[in-house]
């Protein structure tokens, strides 16, 4: 993506809107034009769409319910619940998942929503951090994410995020693994085609954590990213690695404007 090229002229106003003077990051791949961006939902089979749409049929809602119980449960040495500080998530958490990852001044780096939850666990509740992919962390992030359902993804206009955004873009287009593939070769260049029997989606992060039929469970974006990395026969980063956060920053920027669907259902 080169700002000066004709096909990316639309980027200029978006960059200004995001508070970036210019996005000068180089890639061999053409980003998907904003008008052609589509959630993975658009290509679901009708019965899978119905499963996502109906809260009584959506298995992800079981995690959301568990998350609501955790939200209200006192925990840790501070004997404090999320709700004791944040009150009713239905109002205070609206739109939060749509603007993460965010820059954390104290840490001097961006953090994702799960890391934000665990910071509260450790610092405010004086409790132990939840493990990645634990039922608790998935449930709380599903519950918080669900409060943004329907909200458009709105990455923060924070100049401090910019180097991480650029790192994420670079990662997205870096070839890796024995198969020597990049994310962009499938999800920018070949979305809509079939990899063996599977439709290649545009790879937007707007439904996480989500219920994946293949997993028979709710899982995080990091789990899904690791699936693709393993598929490329590359070595996945450890859970919580900064590489996942910068990749998520780029994916959220790439999906800006798409509505949050948490908890989504995907094949």
């Amino acid at each position, binding site marked *: 993506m080169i700002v000066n090229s004709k096909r990316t002229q639309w980027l200029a106003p978006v960059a200004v809107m995001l508070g970036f003077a210019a996005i000068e990051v180089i890639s061999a791949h053409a980003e998907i034009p904003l008008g052609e961006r589509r959630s993975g939902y658009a290509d679901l089979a009708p019965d899978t769409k119905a499963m996502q749409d109906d809260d009584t049929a959506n298995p992800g809602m079981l995690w959301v319910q568990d998350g609501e119980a955790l939200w209200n449960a006192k925990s840790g040495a501070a004997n404090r619940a999320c709700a004791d500080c944040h009150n009713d998530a239905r109002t205070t958490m609206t739109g939060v998942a749509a603007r993460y990852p965010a820059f954390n001044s104290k840490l001097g780096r961006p953090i994702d929503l799960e890391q934000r939850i665990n910071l509260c666990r450790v610092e405010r509740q004086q409790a132990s951090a939840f493990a990645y992919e634990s039922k608790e962390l998935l449930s709380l992030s599903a519950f918080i994410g669900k409060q943004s359902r329907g909200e458009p993804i709105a990455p923060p206009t924070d100049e401090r995020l910019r180097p991480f955004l650029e790192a994420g873009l670079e990662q997205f287009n870096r070839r890796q*693994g024995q198969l*020597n593939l990049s994310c962009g*070769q499938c999800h920018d260049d070949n979305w809509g*085609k*079939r990899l063996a029997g599977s439709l290649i989606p545009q790879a937007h992060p707007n439904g996480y954590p989500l219920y994946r039929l293949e997993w028979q469970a709710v899982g995080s974006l990091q789990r899904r990213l690791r699936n693709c990395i393993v598929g490329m*026969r590359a070595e996945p980063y450890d859970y919580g690695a900064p590489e996942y956060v910068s990749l998520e920053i780029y994916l959220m920027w790439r999906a800006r404007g798409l509505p949050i669907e948490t908890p989504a259902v995907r094949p």
Partner: protein
Amino acid sequence: MNVRRCALLVLLCAATGTVASGQGSLRPYVIVDDAIPASLTGTRGDPGRGRAIVVARQNTCLLCHSGPFPEERFQGNLSPSLKGTGARWNEGQLRLRLVDASRLNAHTIMPSYYRVEGLNRVAPAWRGKPILSAEQIEDVVAYLATLRDE
């Protein structure tokens, strides 16, 4: 290798500037224009084994390609059908396209099936190993060369 063959090899290398010496455990090969004319193993592959290699899921061919495999339900459509491949390319051209297609198009999505260098973050289980062995490459070349009907 006798002196005359050596001299020929040097001449070829000088003409094309594209000798790939052996990487790690891989056998050396010589690229001439857009082809690797000589068998990697020195012998012809077996087309029957080659077909079995192409349709086996772990070898990744049918993730992207379709072909004359009526028994295979899931075939990809990212890349051209393998039908007629043998009419479009000779064996040497097929061999280079399998061994390292990126030498012909740096942006190709086609993996290099016989290469272990210049790769990033390869998982430990695959590190230092090509996707296919030299014998498998030759079997697949022999099979693809039989696909002459468009």
